[in-house]
């Protein structure tokens, strides 16, 4: 067998080991992984707790947004009803869409990932447990504050996609739009933090032998999901930043009268917005792929094809954003490409649907609640997919655009593709976290009420739309034949709500959270999450030899619980997990993990405080939160990247692994690359925006005069990058002093900061006023983006110096040093590109 890392796969034959293991090892694991109690629960970082809180919070937002939907439907039940005033109605539908998309759908998928993935991969925890806690608390605090804006009439009211010029200060002068822009921008940061955790976790913490060909499909789906978040979310972060700058400082990014363009918002928003639909659908599809095999009691048909479908959807979904813009008058040929891509993306979706149908056909599915939700979701999603192909056809889209037909289509796709699978997952996996099983009888009622309610609501809505009723209107006149279909939709909404209410009653009666005495594998699943677990996950980490290890090796659960596989104890007396290679999951090293801490919680609270107080224009308090958030995060990081006395440890059966590595083998290196991908995408989107606006309105642009300044600026950045590389070289040299590599990086930082300062001041001397033209505004914004990276560099330089002074920057390798080096190199590259772009585009008048 070929090896990825030099690890000898024959070593796997040593497992399961023969000798009996001591009970004291389990007690030590329990002690090390124990969760704090009382008020100290706020410091918990274990995935079991954080995952459950995350799921519960996402579900709370689902309920809150659902209540808004009920009020909306009540208002539309009959013509000229006055349940809601017009302005409040605008806030309700904006918050319904925003909360469902940003506070329920994406966080719910991340939450399920945080909860299930460690057990599914047989890891002790995800590799950055404090990051999970930070992502959760930021989402929890930020989300609740954001939602509360509706109680004081300050909720956003411009639709969930917030198109300018409607959301510009001219037409939205209050702070409602700012709540959306700052609130959502902040919540996206939490989503990205979660995505990094999940991506690195899947690639680096799988059980040995769990090659990519044996990886559970939910993990595959979450891998693609996390990758898509890193690529897609920067677009909306940039868009919200630009619109907020326009509103706060009068910089005309989207104002056509000063050289900006409102279409830019649509491109940026939908470059995020359409992949977002697949970001929601893919994890749900992964859950269905896992469940359908167990429920049909057979191997999944077409595992490889489903992996292809997940990857294919991940790529193709980035080529369909402009199908939301068919009515904007884009060039015909471009429209044709987007229509073709929109139809092409139905190929991978179809592959998955046919695989699930085939699995159900060849297996023996039981008539139980998760099966009902899976099949119901499948039927609903296919119906939504078919109307999706209809609206991918441009002439049809022109007719249906902005009508209730689109509302019906998107709800079919999202409820069938995500909500029903999530409910199936609640029933299927609740046995992992509850002492009692949910009621099967009530579950069937829940399903039929939800299924019937969903179709009674949205099937007639297609007709309402085809009869011409536009979206986002708070009432309508009688005599348009819209009364009956609207009334039916409202009745259906309440039936759907009754199903959800019944589910809540079932939860209250039967769900009892536990980390140890759960009811277990209710539906006969064959993957590793059904191994017996405690807060430390599995007693020992198994060697995986197939896709359904519990089906193929009936003794596996017992052997794992008896500690006959890897890491049956704590090798260092601390929290730890096995890090494996990304492709073939070969053991690489033992990650020593950090435990509970209050700092991620405080960091999240102060970060949320900064953004939310900025929204309500409490500037002094907001600015005070910024250093507090920074200090909290730095304090949490201070505990990480520590070496333990044991350089190598026995992880079982005499297999020795190092306890510290750096470079591309290290999980920290992968996370840093993810962060830089996000930064790179934000920059790339900024470059696109700059060129797009120039291409639309070249007459507003003038050629910069002192172009030659680009060269000394670029030379300064190059010097900074060279010094960084020299510092890395010094790090590996035995003769170098303790401070010399760090000093090289500090000098590199100084060069980079000086280059940025030169770029900034020489550009200001050109006299481009950011309030006068889009060119000036974009130039200022791009310099500000670079300035943000410079601020990070300043923090990092200080942090590295402090760690060096404390003797924490170990030689010849150190992760903190690697991370700072990578940031310096990236910042130098981005700074050079910014200087050249601003001064050489436009090239001629």
């Amino acid at each position, binding site marked *: *067998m*070929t090896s990825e890392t030099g690890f000898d796969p024959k070593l796997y034959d040593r497992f399961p080991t023969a000798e009996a293991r001591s009970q004291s090892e389990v007690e030590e694991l329990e002690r090390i992984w124990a969760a704090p109690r009382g008020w100290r629960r706020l410091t918990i970082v274990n995935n079991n707790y954080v995952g459950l809180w995350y799921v519960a919070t996402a579900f709370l937002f689902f309920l809150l947004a659902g209540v808004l939907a009920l009020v909306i439907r009540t208002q539309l039940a009959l013509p000229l009803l006055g349940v809601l005033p017009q302005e409040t109605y605008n806030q309700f539908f904006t918050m319904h869409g925003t909360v469902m998309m940003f506070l329920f759908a994406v966080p719910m998928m991340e939450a399920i990932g945080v909860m299930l993935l460690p057990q599914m991969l047989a890891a002790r925890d995800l590799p950055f447990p404090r990051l999970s806690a930070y992502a959760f608390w930021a989402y929890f605090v930020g989300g609740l504050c954001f939602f509360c804006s509706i109680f004081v009439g300050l909720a956003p009211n411009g639709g969930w996609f917030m198109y300018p010029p409607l959301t510009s200060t001219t037409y939205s002068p209050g702070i409602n739009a700012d709540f959306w822009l700052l609130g959502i921008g902040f919540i996206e940061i939490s989503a990205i933090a979660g995505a990094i955790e999940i991506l690195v976790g899947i690639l680096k913490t799988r059980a040995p032998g769990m*090659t*990519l*060909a044996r990886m559970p499909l939910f993990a595959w789906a979450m891998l693609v999901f996390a990758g898509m978040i890193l690529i897609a979310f920067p677009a909306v972060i940039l868009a919200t930043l630009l619109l907020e700058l326009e509103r706060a400082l009068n910089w005309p990014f989207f104002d056509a009268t000063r050289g900006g363009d409102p279409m830019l918002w649509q491109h940026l928003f939908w470059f995020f917005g359409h992949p977002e639909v697949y970001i929601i659908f893919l994890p749900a599809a992964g859950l269905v792929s896992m469940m359908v095999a167990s429920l049909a009691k057979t191997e999944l048909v077409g595992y*490889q*094809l489903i*992996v*292809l479908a997940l*990857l*294919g959807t*991940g*790529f*193709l979904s*980035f*080529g369909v954003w402009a199908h939301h813009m068919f009515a904007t008058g884009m*060039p*015909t*040929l*471009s429209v*044709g*490409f987007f*229509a*073709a*891509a929109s*139809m*092409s993306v139905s*190929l*991978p979706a179809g592959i998955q649907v046919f695989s699930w149908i085939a699995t159900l056909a060849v297996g023996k599915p039981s008539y139980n609640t998760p099966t009902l939700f899976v099949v119901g979701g499948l039927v609903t999603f296919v119906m939504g997919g078919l109307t999706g192909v209809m609206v991918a056809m441009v002439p049809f889209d022109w007719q249906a655009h902005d009508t209730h037909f689109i509302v019906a289509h998107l709800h079919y796709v999202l409820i069938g593709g995500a909500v029903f699978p999530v409910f199936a997952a609640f029933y299927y996996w609740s046995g992992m976290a509850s002492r009692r099983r949910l009621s099967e009888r009530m579950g069937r009622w829940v399903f039929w009420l939800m299924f019937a309610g969903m179709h009674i609501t949205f099937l007639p809505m297609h007709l309402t739309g085809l009869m011409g009723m536009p979206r986002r209107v708070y009432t309508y006149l009688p005599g348009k034949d819209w009364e009956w279909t609207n009334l039916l939709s409202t009745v259906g909404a309440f039936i759907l709500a009754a199903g959800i209410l019944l589910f809540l009653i079932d939860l209250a009666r039967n769900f009892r959270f536990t980390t140890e005495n759960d009811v277990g594998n209710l539906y006969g699943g064959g993957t590793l999450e059904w191994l017996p677990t405690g807060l430390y996950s599995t007693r020992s980490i198994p060697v995986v030899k197939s896709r359904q290890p519990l089906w193929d090796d009936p003794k596996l659960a017992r052997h794992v619980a008896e500690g006959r596989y890897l890491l049956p104890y704590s090798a260092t007396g601390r929290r730890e997990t096995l890090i494996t290679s990304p*492709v*073939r999951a070969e053991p690489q090293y033992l990650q020593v993990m950090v435990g509970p801490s209050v700092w991620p919680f405080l960091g999240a609270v102060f970060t949320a405080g900064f953004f939310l107080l900025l929204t309500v224009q409490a500037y002094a308090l907001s600015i005070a939160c910024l250093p507090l958030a920074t200090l909290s995060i730095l304090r949490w990081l201070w505990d990480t990247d520590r070496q333990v006395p044991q350089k190598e440890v026995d992880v079982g059966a005499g297999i020795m692994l190092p306890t510290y590595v750096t470079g591309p083998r290290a999980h920290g290196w992968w996370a840093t690359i993810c962060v830089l991908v996000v930064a790179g995408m934000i920059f790339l989107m900024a470059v696109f925006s700059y060129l797009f606006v120039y*291409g639309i309105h070249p007459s507003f642009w003038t050629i910069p005069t002192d172009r030659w300044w680009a060269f000394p600026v670029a030379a300064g950045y190059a010097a900074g990058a060279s010094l960084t590389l020299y510092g890395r070289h010094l790090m590996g040299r035995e003769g170098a002093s303790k401070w010399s590599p760090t000093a090289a990086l500090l000098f590199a930082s100084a060069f980079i900061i000086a280059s940025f300062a030169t770029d900034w001041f020489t550009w200001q001397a050109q006299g481009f006023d950011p309030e006068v033209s889009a060119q000036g505004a974009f130039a200022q914004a791009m310099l500000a983006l670079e300035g943000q990276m410079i601020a990070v560099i300043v923090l990092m330089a200080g942090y590295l110096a402090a760690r060096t002074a404390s003797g924490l920057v170990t030689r010849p390798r150190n992760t903190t040093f690697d991370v700072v080096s990578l940031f310096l190199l990236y910042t130098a590259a981005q700074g050079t590109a910014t200087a050249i772009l601003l001064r050489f585009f436009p090239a001629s008048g």
Partner: protein
Amino acid sequence: MRFWRNLLDGLILWTAHFFAILIIASLWPGTLLARILVLMATILALAIAGWHSMLVLRNMRAAPDDFTRWSGGLALLGYALAGTAILYQGLPSLLA
């Protein structure tokens, strides 16, 4: 990284083709030149997809283990999906 590149080559090719034809259509909107360039880009992309598929197929035959064969098969399917999407996206240049 090489493994990932091999695995995703087909889909990366689709991405390159998609953005190339989009840029062409944006630079020369509504012109015959744009349609000809899109057609050429499509033929080129399909040729690359075909050629690489043959290489992947040859490597699969010499694969040392099941996993290499599996990942080769996945790469091949990626080319098939990308090829179909590329062909479909090239059609508007003939029809528009």
